């Protein structure tokens, strides 16, 4: 009751304090209404088709080089612990005959999901392969000047099987679109230092006492789901001894939404247990959590995005050497969301470099992690020039294949001058002190 009261109170306060905030909050809800998967943040699904139009290049400029970092496609959940949490709670309740008829049905769906996922932890799904194929095909279709017969495509993957398969799926489909591409693939420990760098120092220290306090305050009103408890358990008060309401609701919701990533969307029945508001609240909590972990959150010093400093340096170094070539082709890198998100924040694509200590700001100011790193999410730098001697190289950044903004000035948006961007990045990297 108390929680409910606080929730209503804060909701009233929120709507009362500033009108524009509610407007923007509405749109996340709209997105979730349309695509429930949006609520599951890093388990969100890449769009089936890309509708956004691409702006033609300034006169005379032609694309000549593509540099890319992409996340693997839809996968099964990485390990079973996320599923075990609600599953054990349900089994415990079942053994005490504490499940309602709905609860028993939920249990059956959970059984079927667990059975389907067994032995596939972390595996790329058929859906994931298709996403990667689509991305590869569209890349060839959109930039035939770069990916022409005979062009070189260098693919590098982390050493995680789902990334290797993602790389293979994209490359395979690129060859369907242009069979004469010269594609090489590599998955080596040697490139892990920038392809999948996890900065232990930064990772260990993201949850500072200030961040924890703010996070707890933010989530206090948003976790829990007494309606669900009533629905599933005969006596919610009794099962509370071994069912943690917040964890149960959170993980069960994830379990349901995760199924949208599998081939043919197998068994998505659990999603029906939750209403849009439940999903929305979970999204809010997750979004804030991802921000604290990987965004420029002032509560922990704002340095988390620098975990990807080596990757950004490598992207610049690769571009530096490729720009010297007459026909450099493309460099595609396949990795993980825990790299892609901080990279996007570090560069400041679409304002993801937002630095704030007010967690309520995120949603209002468009820091929505699901839009940055769904399954198969990717960042592409398309390089343009009129000829190999042209010194004024332009770039365009595509976030999930849609034109994105950079935090620097330009006279030809969505195109930016490479030299400006390069300098901006180098300055920013130089400013980082461990």
């Amino acid at each position: 009751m108390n929680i409910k009261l606080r929730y209503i109170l804060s909701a009233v306060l929120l709507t009362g304090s500033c009108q524009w905030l509610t407007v923007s909050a509405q749109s996340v809800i709209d997105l979730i209404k349309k695509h429930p998967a949006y609520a599951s943040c890093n388990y969100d699904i890449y769009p089936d088709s890309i509708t956004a139009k691409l702006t033609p290049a300034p006169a005379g400029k032609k694309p000549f080089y593509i540099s890319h970092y992409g996340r693997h496609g839809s996968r099964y959940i990485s390990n079973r612990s996320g599923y075990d949490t609600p599953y054990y709670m349900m089994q415990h309740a079942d053994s005490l005959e504490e499940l309602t008829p709905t609860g028993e049905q939920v249990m059956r769906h959970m059984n079927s999901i667990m059975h389907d996922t067994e032995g596939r932890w972390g595996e790329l799904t058929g859906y994931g392969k298709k996403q990667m194929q689509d991305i590869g095909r569209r890349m060839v279709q959109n930039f035939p000047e770069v990916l022409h017969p005979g062009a070189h495509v260098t693919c590098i993957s982390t050493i995680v099987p789902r990334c290797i398969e993602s790389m293979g799926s994209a490359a395979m489909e690129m060859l369907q679109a242009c069979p004469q591409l010269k594609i090489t693939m590599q998955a080596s420990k040697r490139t892990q230092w920038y392809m999948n760098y996890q900065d232990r120092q930064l990772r260990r220290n993201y949850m500072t006492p200030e961040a924890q306090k703010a996070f707890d305050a933010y989530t206090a009103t948003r976790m829990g789901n007494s309606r669900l408890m009533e629905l599933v358990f005969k006596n919610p008060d009794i099962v509370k001894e071994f069912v943690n309401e917040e964890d149960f609701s959170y993980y069960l919701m994830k379990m349901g939404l995760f199924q949208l990533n599998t081939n043919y969307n197998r068994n998505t029945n659990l999603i029906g247990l939750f209403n849009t508001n439940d999903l929305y609240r979970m999204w809010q909590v997750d979004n804030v959590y991802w921000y604290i972990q990987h965004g420029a959150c002032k509560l922990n010093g704002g340095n988390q995005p620098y975990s990807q400093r080596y990757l950004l340096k490598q992207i610049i170094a690769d571009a530096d050497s490729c720009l010297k070539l007459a026909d450099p082709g493309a460099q595609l890198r396949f990795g993980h969301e825990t790299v892609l998100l901080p990279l996007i924040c570090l560069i400041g694509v679409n304002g993801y470099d937002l630095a704030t200590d007010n967690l309520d700001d995120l949603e209002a100011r468009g820091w929505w992690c699901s839009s940055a790193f769904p399954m198969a999410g990717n960042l592409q730098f398309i390089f343009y020039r009129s000829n190999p001697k042209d010194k004024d190289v332009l770039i365009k950044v595509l976030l999930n294949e849609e034109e994105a903004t950079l935090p620097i000035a330009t006279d030809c948006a969505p195109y930016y001058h490479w030299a400006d961007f390069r300098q901006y990045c180098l300055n920013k990297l130089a400013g980082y002190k461990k």
Partner: protein
Amino acid sequence: MKKLLVFIVTVATAFSCIKAQSVVKELQADVNRAAGMFYALPIGKMPKDTPPPAGKKPFYINHYGCPGSYYLDKKEYYDETFATLTKADSLGKLTKLGKDVLRRIQLLYQDAHNREGELTQVGARQSRDMVKQLIERYPDMFTTDGYYSVRSIVENRSIMTMQEGLLQLSAMRQPIVIRSKASMQELKFMDPTDDLLTSQRLDSVTRIHYNRFVSLNSSDNRLMQSLFNDPYYVVSNIDAAKLSLQLFILAGNVQHANIDKKITLWNIFTPEEIHQHWRKQNAWHYINYGGCTLNGGYQAYLQRTVLRNMIHMGDSVVKRVNPLMHLRYTREHVIMSLACIMELDNCGLHTDNLDSLEAYGWANYRIAPLGGSIAMIHYRTNPSDTDVLVKVLLNGQEARLPIKSDCAPYYHWNDVKRYYLRKLYRYENRRFNFKKK
């Protein structure tokens, strides 16, 4: 039964004595073969196909393959060898040759650094060449209405081998429907385990025989003398047998490295030493994966589910109208045991005499080198043809099956199926009804 087998083998020996010299010759022709299961099989020229009986056309390719050439999993081979020689060098114990070997090991060490188990460029090439050859050899099998399903175990080098092959397929045929999968769910028929058989692998009798075989086939003194200038240092600091083996393994690995053709390690061994080392490795593989009767002769049955899957798939596609292919990439030893249980060519050998392997033509590099494969090609005249014929390719070459046929190397599918299923049932009966008997 065992006696009968031994008898058959003895008779077979008489015929295959001609082969006795051929390992030596084959090693002379390409010393890299001495690397055994680490020999990177060159795909080479397209083998000649015996024309199929009139009217029969291929409609199904059922394949199991090894990964392509890869860097050793155990980095100790590079690290320890490098450390041993570096230490000796710092104490001034290396000869001029020893110093040069250290230089070569350093190059290898640097090339392999942080690449343990990774598919090499040679391996990528092999995989693409294999698929290319398959397409050129059976062009009618690769059509837009065909279905191509490719699987790998969850092991990066195998997945990479699969993906490289897929790129070749994709580049040569458009549009084409390809499905790929690398899942732990399929271990049962991709890379099965069997605790009982594994536990029986190296019983005391086998171990004694193998150790004796090793000591009879070891002479590391000459090599040590050529590398170190101080015999006392060798005696008190160097495990000669171990170092010699490590150098031999590394010599076989130069072919995979990016520095191949720039250096070799084979020339620190005499041809006899290379042959000896190979014999030890070959015997080891025979004991572990072949039909060695010392440990019961059943080790190859570890792959019975793989063979069963092969038969099952062959049977379930009989009515299919459009061409179909299953490629499955797994470990080398799966292929080796599969070849043995299928008794391809000389692979089915059962003996307890480790000295005789060569005479019988049982040589690891012929069976399951890196990039190697077993492919069963199914033929028929049309989808309603009930007399399906199959031909088995071992590493691309037509193989002999232990089954009667009026059209070898083509065999009647029904005979093949019956023979192998009976074989598997015999084994399973023996094993699982043991107590009843």
